[in-house]
């Protein structure tokens, strides 16, 4: 209470604040992930159907959750940026994309590693896996579009529009692939297995998710600091290069 949050919407004020927060997020992330992994790998009971290999879901499921969560957050920041014409919002969106893409990739990788012993195949056209794959393409699209456009303002906005369009698309894809699977009578195995999950398993899963979330915060904040520096440097470099002259109006 009493803190003027709006103050931090200026990159200059945000920069030191982010710097102060990063170590805390990092520590919390490391702790949560360490405890989560300990419970998930050593404490949680062995699954009577899948044996030990199921334990990869303690990485897979949180990574998949984070990948989708971060995409929505990225789109929200981009939307704010366009609605309020706020530069910091776009910088946040830019900083989120690589981390989101990383989690998407991690989810796909661990999904494949889990799929091999469980389904006997590295890749199955399961609705969740396919949606994750498309999500990865969309992250790639957002980042590619940004890097292809030289003008920063346009790059921010164009990739923002694409991110927002993607938000509508992902649920439709999930639904459509599910529909498609039932039609083809393919692998109708669901990723989380039985719905009855032991309390320890749930604890581990939630702890890992929390850890990943805190990790994302730390990484995104430090990346946004880089983005701010990069952009402000461009600005100041140019300011010193061109002599600002008052405009004469007659």
């Amino acid at each position, binding site marked *: 209470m009493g803190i003027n949050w709006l103050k931090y919407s200026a990159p200059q004020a945000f920069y030191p604040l982010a710097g102060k927060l990063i170590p805390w997020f990092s520590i919390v992330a490391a702790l949560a992930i360490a405890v989560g992994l300990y419970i998930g790998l050593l404490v949680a009971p062995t699954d009577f159907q899948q044996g030990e290999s199921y334990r990869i879901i303690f990485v897979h499921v949180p990574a998949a959750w984070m990948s989708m969560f971060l995409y929505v957050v990225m789109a929200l920041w981009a939307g704010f940026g*366009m609605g309020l014409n706020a530069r910091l919002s776009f910088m946040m969106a830019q900083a989120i994309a690589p981390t989101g893409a990383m989690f998407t990739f991690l989810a796909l990788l661990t999904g494949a590693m889990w799929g091999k012993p469980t389904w006997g195949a590295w890749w199955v056209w399961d609705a969740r896996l396919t949606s994750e794959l*498309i999500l990865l*393409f*969309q992250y*790639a*699209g957002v980042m*590619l*579009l940004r890097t*292809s*456009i030289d*003008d920063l*303002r*346009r790059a921010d*906005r*164009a990739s923002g*529009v*694409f991110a*927002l*369009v*993607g938000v*509508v*698309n992902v649920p*439709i*894809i999930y*639904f*459509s*692939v599910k*529909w*498609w699977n039932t*039609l083809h009578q393919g692998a109708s195995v669901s990723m989380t297995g039985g719905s009855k999950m032991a309390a320890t398993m749930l604890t581990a899963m939630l702890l890992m998710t929390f850890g990943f979330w805190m990790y994302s915060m730390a990484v995104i904040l430090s990346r946004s600091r880089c983005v701010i520096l990069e952009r402000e440097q461009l600005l100041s470099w140019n300011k010193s290069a061109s002599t600002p002259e008052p405009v004469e109006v007659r």
Partner: protein
Amino acid sequence: MTRPGMWDALCGVVRRDLLLAMRRRSDAAMPVFFLVIVASLFPLGVGPEPAVLRTIGPGVLWVAALLACLLSLGRVFTADYLDGVLEQMVLIAQPLPVLVVGKVFAHWVIAGVPVVLLSPLLGMQFGLDGEAVAVLALSLLLGTPTLSMIGTIGAALVLGVRGSGLLVALLVLPLYVPVLIFGAGAVASSLAGVGAEANLSLLGACLVLSLFFAPWATAAALRIALE
């Protein structure tokens, strides 16, 4: 929310684009030739086994239609952007999304309708029977406008960007997945004797949804591109 002259402006956009396509008929015909060639390559690649062709037919034809649509996307706004007509279009006393609908409709007439009309012929190449051919044409009729709708968002986003041809494919193809699934699914389920109604209604739903959202996204992207 109709304004005076809105319908005129919409028709004006369509008329001009169709007139331009008539002047450059060979350009307009190229995606269709592409579709026919790609569809003909598949039997050569996988072998003439009728059962195999019938199984892969719906998917192959839909993917080919999707790629043909993609090829023609570059033309929707690029010329207008380069010769300044796009600027003029943005500065008209009509809502830009409405004009975008005109552009999309013209694109569909030029690139989508020929695909729909040719599809029965191509379907027969793949050994689809009468009902499946009809479902194929119907699914394309419902699906290709959605492809044009979604595609123009991508086309507007990459206007004037280097390497835009490839970039638009990378942006738009993931967005095409649901249409592809429902479209090919409609034909496949008709072949399997399940009935295509469910898939066709989902295609219709996609069309309605894209009709609501895509013109706004495209209009926003055009304004961004013109800055």
